[in-house]
């Protein structure tokens, strides 16, 4: 079973994502900010991250930059944000996101992208780079 970490400071958003992902057969863990996500990422080999941008302590950009720079993991990461500006999108990709989605996320769309990213990661994970990211 694929294991996904949902990182968001809003409890309702985490529960929403958990319900969607668990109903599709994924195992889900949660973190309330980038710091907690880092701690969990160091302990658990997740298959994918779903990460909010605006969080206290360490935001989504910071979390992704940390895990990418420390080479903890190169597994796919979806950044989910309320911010639709193109510079936010570019910044997310520069931080290490493989996909940038605008909230509110629709269940079918999220699951489709996750299946795609997990499929891609199975074959080309070591070479997956930001400029090969999938945009919606």
């Amino acid at each position, binding site marked *: 079973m694929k294991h996904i970490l949902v990182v968001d400071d809003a409890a*309702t958003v985490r529960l929403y994502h958990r319900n969607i992902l668990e109903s599709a057969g994924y195992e889900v863990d949660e973190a309330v900010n980038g710091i907690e996500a880092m701690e969990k990422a160091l302990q658990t080999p997740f298959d994918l991250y779903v990460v909010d941008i605006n969080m*206290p302590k360490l935001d989504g950009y*910071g979390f992704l930059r940390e895990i990418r720079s420390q080479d903890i993991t190169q597994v796919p990461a979806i950044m989910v944000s*309320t911010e639709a500006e193109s510079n936010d999108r570019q*910044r997310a990709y520069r931080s290490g996101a493989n996909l940038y989605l605008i*909230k*509110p996320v629709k269940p079918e769309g999220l699951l489709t992208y996750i299946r795609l990213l997990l499929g891609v990661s199975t074959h080309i994970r070591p070479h997956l780079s930001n400029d090969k990211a999938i945009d919606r």
Partner: protein
Amino acid sequence: MPIIKQQSPQLINIDERQRPRDFNGLVAELEADDSTARRWAARDLAEFPESVEVLVRRLKYEGDPSVRETILTTLIRLGNPATMTELVECLRSEDAALRNEVIEAMKELPDEVAPIMSELLADHDPDVRIFAVNILESLCHPQVEEWLIKVIEQDPHVNVCATALDLLGEVGTTASRLGLEQLKARFAEEPYIGFAADLAIKRIDES
């Protein structure tokens, strides 16, 4: 090889604070290479209400977390209208970390934030409206629910409403119920709004 006795950090602190603590001296010291000196300068500038602008300017590029924390603490202590003006401008920054720090600082200033909250919630930029709702999250003020209800009833942007909805799921009372039902109807095509509104209504009904 001679043993070089190192100066203790405490001695450095005392030396730094023995320098003149006038406004201009502190402003100059806020640009010092030594982070300890900058931290002391940021702390002592709390005695000068006119220091808000220079503190916020430094905050925008200060790299040392402890100095950033001290600057924000000083801004909270100053807590004057100039502080509010500068902090609101920071909410428009591209720097997510700065925005988050400012949101946390503004939560500490309920009496100063309250008079400008309606203005923030009516800002032309939906991101600023979202950050305003974020400030309400732990703002100890009796109008919090009233502001949130107004957001879910009137704001045209789904993510501003969703952010308010998340918070009403925690603090909402029966006064929010009608607004939540109306919000569900207004954004019927958005599964998240339906999910979060149902959750909030369930919690209200059970409490």
